[in-house]
């Protein structure tokens, strides 16, 4: 048998290397010389689970299986429980693995926090694994090196003993990783600095709780008990620290609204997804918001008792802020009274990066009796630990040249800290600077050594996002490149065994599964299969991990803090800057991911470029229109952005997203696209003041640059123009009239099963996780900014966004609107996920000359790719405009990037039309499984599966069990454009928005 000498070789399962092995296969060549077939063989020959332990792949000879690995069948997907590592929220996942490589991430349905959903970034994480720009191996001073050289260099650097040793990491939510880092620090005498680059104000929140409790706690909202939620300048639904969990809880609370009312008030300056979901929204600048919080605190003192009343009064006495404008003051009074009336069922959240405001809110919650009811302070959340103080210490030491060795674990401070460019030089001056990361970032380039690290899907590990939740993370692919586990590397450099899998197992044996009845191996396999352990076991285990790793801060009784924080001074001047995160790019870590770059922001509907969000009134004043190139300046720092006029912005606030303009940003797949503006990294505009990173309330200037910029917008229109395509009601019981079925000559077709979808617009927050899930599942191509700008986007599922004058909101459905409440100043925001409605009387099916689009026996409108000749009449005739045409050859060509393609879905050719088909491959899969096992398996579409809010429901209208038929009959159900007689299979449930009432 001829063995292809280009094949990557592996050790045979029994560990004995083959005698014909080629010594030292060159890294880099390894993957690049492979053809698709041999690559798959090689990956398959490696075996997924069994050989995942191998960090280094020694040369050997690949042979086809005589006895296949159990559970792995070519062409059948297997799912493994794991944990998402894209951010520290650590949602539980099920990884779909096909032919020994992961192709899709899905939420784990029984995960106690995330409840089965996943956010857009998590859905895009599988694409991050197959990034062609990842490090293929370690580097020293920018040149490829071997691990031996790296180990030697690190050893000598550490041995010299000069200067402090620092490990700079994001919040380590993995207890094992924290333990490993602590062991490294103990061995080498160093400090761990955790910081998080996001703008969600967690650092300030931790500081605030330390001030009043002596212990930094990150309280966890408990929405199930909450009747009135007031959110000040935070976006927990979209870009908070745990959006999936919050959205799941929020959606559940809204669903229960019929039994017990729930009202959500938002006070913010920049429009966010949470603001869009709120019932009542007030516009306020950052300082006005702080004053608002203080006013609420004053109101909450009424009838309050307990040890913190004194503290609150003291604080109120000291906190000096500018007085509130009359309207806001009146609202603050009203909402303060409302909060007090709902003591024990009220909750106030703040996203401020200002400790003063967080302190106010902490005290407020305490006075409202939220703690223990709607706010869990006891256990709290563990997903954010970054403190500005520790970071400031590190920066000081760097400046003072006191740092001997710096280990950066997957962070990018050069680009996400204000004043970060100076850091690059400082880091370069450190004798030993090591980057443990996956891809080239500005920080990686500043470091001397790059220790190429595994992607999360290639790693072992665990995660403890809450004190009673402990999950496992297992690799689902043999490492693609010559990389190491980052914690394992640190252990190795600490002189210990660098096998991280062993370390995790040992840690679990000692702390998690110690007291069990079953032998450890069995218990561990069980935990792996389930993805973690139950809450009781988890709580005990995490406590043990904490005892071993953390420096445990003791709490203390309530007493005034040594130093009261000063509230941020108002920005002064005409314009304030508020930095925000976008759902796709978050804090900039996923900026390299083209899926997430192309994901249009749900509010601005722009993709690929950073947009400055400006209120319509202010834009008119300044003569700025959407698409103008503008400059936003804070002091002498400027960034270049594209203006986007956005209703709902406070006129004095310009919103700027972070995550753009980074060195590692995704490039357009089209070769002739212009490179994006690089000077758009908005982190430059934040201010480092009083040991905290200030991200809002910064005095800013907005200047036109006198030219137009490319603004790739998926949607240009802001409004629905009075068309009855989307509805909003005031409560669950309102009934939207049905459009009568016209008399028709058409036969009624019987579909069995009859697939229908119901989308609850009251649950949808616009987070766009479904969009990326669809892209991952259906091989939807990325086209790049220039093509998006020409409206050649390829999304099968899009989320339309309409602004609706707030006057209409109070009118409810069918009543006349109250005039005079303004239009675009503070409108309601409505999201509408739009995909192919699989019309029973489809306009597209009628007009295709070659019958490339037909209707199946189960109600799906089929698109036959190999028959389509591309006349585009179907797209013209579609009233929903959900069809997408392959204008050019959009197929991915890079060998590594192609690995993410789902083999169950055709990759479409140039000139072919494509569209959503309700994940027909999943429907077929479920049908086959049902036949095979005899048990009815209900398919889930990718979008439905990923939605953290469970807003999308899918099922067989003929089968009562699925509940779809009942959903379609609900009062607030409606069909968009149903009156055209197309018989869509998608029904929407109208958004419920409570209006303002007297004495709210």
């Amino acid at each position, binding site marked *: 048998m001829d063995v292809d000498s280009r094949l990557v070789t592996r050790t045979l399962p029994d560990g004995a290397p083959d005698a014909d092995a080629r010594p030292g296969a060159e890294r880099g060549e390894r993957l690049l010389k492979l053809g698709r077939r041999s690559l798959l063989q090689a990956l398959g020959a490696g075996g997924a689970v069994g050989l995942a332990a191998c960090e280094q792949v020694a040369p050997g000879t690949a042979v086809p299986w005589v006895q296949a690995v159990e559970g792995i069948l070519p062409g059948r997907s297997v799912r493994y429980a794991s944990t998402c590592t894209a951010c520290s929220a650590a949602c539980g996942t099920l990884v779909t693995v096909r032919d020994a490589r992961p192709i899709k991430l899905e939420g784990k349905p029984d995960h106690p926090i995330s409840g089965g959903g996943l956010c857009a970034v998590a859905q895009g994480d599988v694409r991050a694994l197959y990034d062609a720009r990842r490090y293929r191996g370690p580097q020293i001073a920018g040149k490829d090196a071997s691990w031996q050289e790296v180990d030697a260099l690190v050893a000598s650097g550490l041995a010299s003993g000069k200067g402090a040793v620092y490990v700079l990491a994001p919040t380590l939510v993995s207890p094992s990783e924290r333990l490993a880092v602590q062991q490294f620090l103990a061995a080498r005498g160093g400090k761990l600095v955790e910081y998080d680059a996001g703008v969600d104000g967690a650092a300030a929140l931790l500081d605030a709780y330390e001030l009043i409790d002596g212990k930094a706690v990150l309280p966890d909202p408990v929405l199930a008990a909450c009747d009135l939620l007031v959110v000040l300048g935070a976006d927990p639904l979209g870009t908070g620290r745990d959006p999936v969990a919050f959205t799941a809880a929020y959606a559940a609370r809204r669903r229960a609204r019929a039994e017990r009312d729930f009202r959500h008030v938002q006070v913010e300056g920049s429009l966010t997804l949470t603001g869009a979901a709120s019932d009542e929204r007030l516009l306020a600048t950052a300082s006005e918001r702080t004053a608002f919080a203080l006013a609420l605190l004053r109101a909450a003192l009424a009838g309050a008792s307990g040890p913190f009343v004194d503290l609150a009064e003291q604080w109120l006495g000291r906190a000096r802020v500018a007085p509130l404008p009359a309207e806001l003051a009146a609202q603050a009074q009203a909402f303060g009274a409302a909060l007090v009336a709902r003591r024990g069922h009220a909750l106030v959240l703040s996203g401020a990066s200002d400790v003063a405001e967080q302190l106010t809110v902490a005290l407020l919650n305490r006075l409202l009796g939220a703690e223990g009811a709607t706010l869990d302070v006891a256990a709290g959340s563990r997903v954010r630990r970054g403190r500005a103080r520790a970071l400031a210490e590190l920066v000081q030491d760097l400046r003072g040249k006191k740092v001997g060795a710096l280990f950066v674990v997957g962070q990018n401070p050069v680009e996400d800290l204000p004043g970060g460019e100076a850091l690059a030089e400082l880091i370069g001056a450190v004798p030993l600077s090591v980057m443990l990361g996956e891809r080239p970032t500005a920080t990686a380039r500043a470091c001397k050594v790059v220790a190429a690290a595994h992607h999360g899907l290639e790693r072992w590990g665990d995660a403890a996002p809450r004190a009673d939740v402990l999950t496992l993370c297992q690799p689902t692919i043999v490492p693609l490149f010559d990389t190491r586990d980052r914690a394992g590397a640190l252990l190795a450099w600490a002189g210990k065994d660098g096998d991280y899998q062993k370390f995790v197992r040992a840690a679990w044996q000692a702390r998690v599964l110690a007291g069990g009845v079953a032998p450890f191996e069995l218990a561990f396999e069980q935990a792996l299969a389930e993805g973690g352990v139950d809450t009781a076991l988890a709580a005990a285990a995490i406590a043990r991990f904490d005892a071993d790793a953390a420096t445990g801060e003791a709490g203390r009784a309530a007493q005034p803090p040594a130093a009261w924080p000063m509230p941020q001074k108002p920005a002064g001047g005409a314009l304030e800057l508020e930095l925000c995160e976008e759902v796709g790019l978050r804090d900039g870590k996923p900026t390299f991911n083209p899926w997430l770059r192309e994901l249009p922001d749900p509010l601005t509907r722009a993709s690929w470029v950073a947009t400055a969000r400006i209120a319509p009134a202010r834009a008119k004043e300044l003569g700025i229109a959407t698409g103008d190139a503008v400059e936003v300046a804070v002091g002498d720092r400027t960034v270049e952005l594209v203006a986007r006029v956005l209703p709902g912005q406070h006129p004095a606030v310009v919103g700027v997203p972070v995550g753009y303009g980074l060195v590692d940003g995704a490039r357009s797949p089209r070769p002739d696209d212009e490179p994006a503006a690089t000077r758009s990294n908005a982190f430059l505009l934040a201010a480092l003041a009083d040991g905290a990173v200030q991200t809002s309330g910064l005095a800013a200037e907005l200047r036109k640059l006198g030219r137009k910029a490319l603004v790739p917008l998926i*949607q*240009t*229109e802001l*409004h*629905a*123009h*009075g*068309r009855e*395509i989307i509805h909003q009601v005031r409560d669950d019981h309102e009934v939207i009239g049905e459009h009568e079925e016209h008399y028709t000559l058409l036969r009624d077709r019987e579909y069995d099963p009859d697939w229908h979808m119901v989308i609850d617009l009251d649950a949808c927050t616009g987070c766009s996780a479904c969009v990326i899930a669809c892209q991952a599942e259906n091989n939807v191509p990325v086209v790049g900014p220039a*093509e998006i700008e*020409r*409206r*050649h*986007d390829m999304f099968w599922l*899009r989320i*339309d*966004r*309409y602004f609706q004058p707030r006057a209409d909101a109070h009118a409810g459905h069918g009543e006349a609107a109250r005039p005079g409440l303004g239009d675009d100043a503070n409108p309601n925001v409505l999201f*509408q996920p*739009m995909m192919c409605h699989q019309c029973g009387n489809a*306009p597209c099916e*009628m*007009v*295709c*000359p*070659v*019958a490339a689009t037909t209707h199946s026996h189960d109600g799906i409108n089929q698109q036959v790719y190999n*028959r*389509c*000749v*591309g*006349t*585009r*009449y179907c*797209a*013209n*005739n579609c*009233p*929903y*405009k959900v*069809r*997408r*045409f*392959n*204008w*050019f*050859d959009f197929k991915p060509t890079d060998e590594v990037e192609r690995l993410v393609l789902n083999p169950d879905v055709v990759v479409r*050719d*140039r*000139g*072919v*039309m494509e569209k959503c088909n309700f994940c027909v491959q999943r429907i077929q899969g479920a049908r086959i499984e049902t036949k095979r096992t005899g048990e009815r398996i209900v398919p889930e579409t990718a979008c439905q599966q990923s939605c953290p809010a469970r807003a999308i429901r899918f099922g067989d209208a003929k089968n009562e069990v699925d509940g779809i038929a009942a959903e379609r009959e609900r009062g607030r159900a409606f069909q*968009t*454009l149903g009156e*055209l007689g*197309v018989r869509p299979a998608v029904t929407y449930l109208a958004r419920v928005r409570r209006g303002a009432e007297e004495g709210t």
Partner: protein
Amino acid sequence: MSTAALDLDAPSTAGEATGDPVGAAPTASAAGAEADLGTVDAARTADEPLVLGDPPYSKITKEIAAPLERKPGGLWWISFLAAVGALIIGVVMVWRTIGTGIGLWGLNRTVGWGFDITNFVFWVGIGHAGTLISAILLLFRQKWRTSIARAAEGMTIFAVCCAGIFPIIHMGRPWLGFFMFPYPNSRGPLWVNFRSPLLWDIFAISTYLTISLLFWYVGLIPDFATMRDRASGWQKKIYEFLALGWNGSMSTWQRYEKACILLAGLATPLVLSVHTVVSFDFATSVIPGWHATIFPPYFVAGAVFSGFAMVITLLLISRKVLKLERFFTLKHFENMAKVLLTTGSIVGAAYATELFVAYYGGNPYERFTFWNRAFGPYAWAYWTMVGCNVLVPQIFWWKRARRSVTVLFVAAILINVGMWFERFNIIVTSLHRDFLPSSWTQYAPTITEVGILIGSFGLFFTLFLLFVRGAPVVAFHEVKHTLFEQREEAHHG
């Protein structure tokens, strides 16, 4: 058809004006061949001659055959090179499109059709004039059609050729275009979708092209025979081949006449059906602005309108350049102008009807579509259309306008511009803002599309210029028959 007694093909000397024993139409001064056409008394339009100057039949032959027999002049060469140049531009742009993708055009996910189908409908519409003149006017025994029929029918063929390119190149995968034909296969067999208007288009256009080609060719046979008898060398061989052994005998003529009537009968319904089917491309859609029952008559009237305008343009040029003023008289143009006036008014009435129905029907989407046409981003295209199609032809209420070459020429070009914009309006303004505002976009053509449009004109004029050199622009026998009847009338009336 023609009197056998006269030796029609005998070469005659120039200036022989009065040697005919038949008829004595008013003659003009004897100052050269051109002045030989005679003046026309405006008051006697009822009797206005359709062939001026009462020439001998042989002169007719000579004059018509002259462009084919003399070497092409500078003007022809310049025009031909310009046309070929334009054609080459089109070929290059089509090549790029097929090679790289429809993405080279300005189309997008909302506006799936732009210049491509606009040009398609434009060219198909133009073709209708020829068929109407050849077939319908033949059945209605309108004598004035005889001299212009040949050129008009040729124009139809070329226009349909130009039109036929667009459905092919607008496809995303034109190399699979054969999928649209119901050819026998073993995949079921897999049929095409007979409910699709695009498929009806295929049948309609191919039928139209076939019938028109047949009709045109059959009509040309006697003329090729005439040319065969006059030509020599390689040209004679070609004409011999094309003449299919025409011998000019009475029985041949009789069969010929029957064939022509038959083909005319077949072609007549095509004038109405082809553009009706093309209008169904839009009328059967759900999109507001397309979803309209008025489209079939509206489109057919529009097609005749634009076709006649193109005929006028071509013939005004031909008559001057080819010295065929004797045959393309002002009377002809006046009649054509009357057709323009009629069909233009029908088109105008259709616009008004659409507006009224949009208002009266109360459908918000439809109302908006029409408001958007007049006041939205493409308002400039809408008002160009209205100005050129509704206002311009109104000038033809005045006789002086109907008979003024300048007015006719300018008006005809404006009308064609207007009709192009009508299709642009219907297609693009209806698509770009349809039901859901979230998908509203703008459309602007790219250089590739403009190049293809230029190329289509290049093809059209290349073919026409070749036609002018290869076949007689006026049908010898038909115009001689007209002259004969004219003389009979003058003699007896």
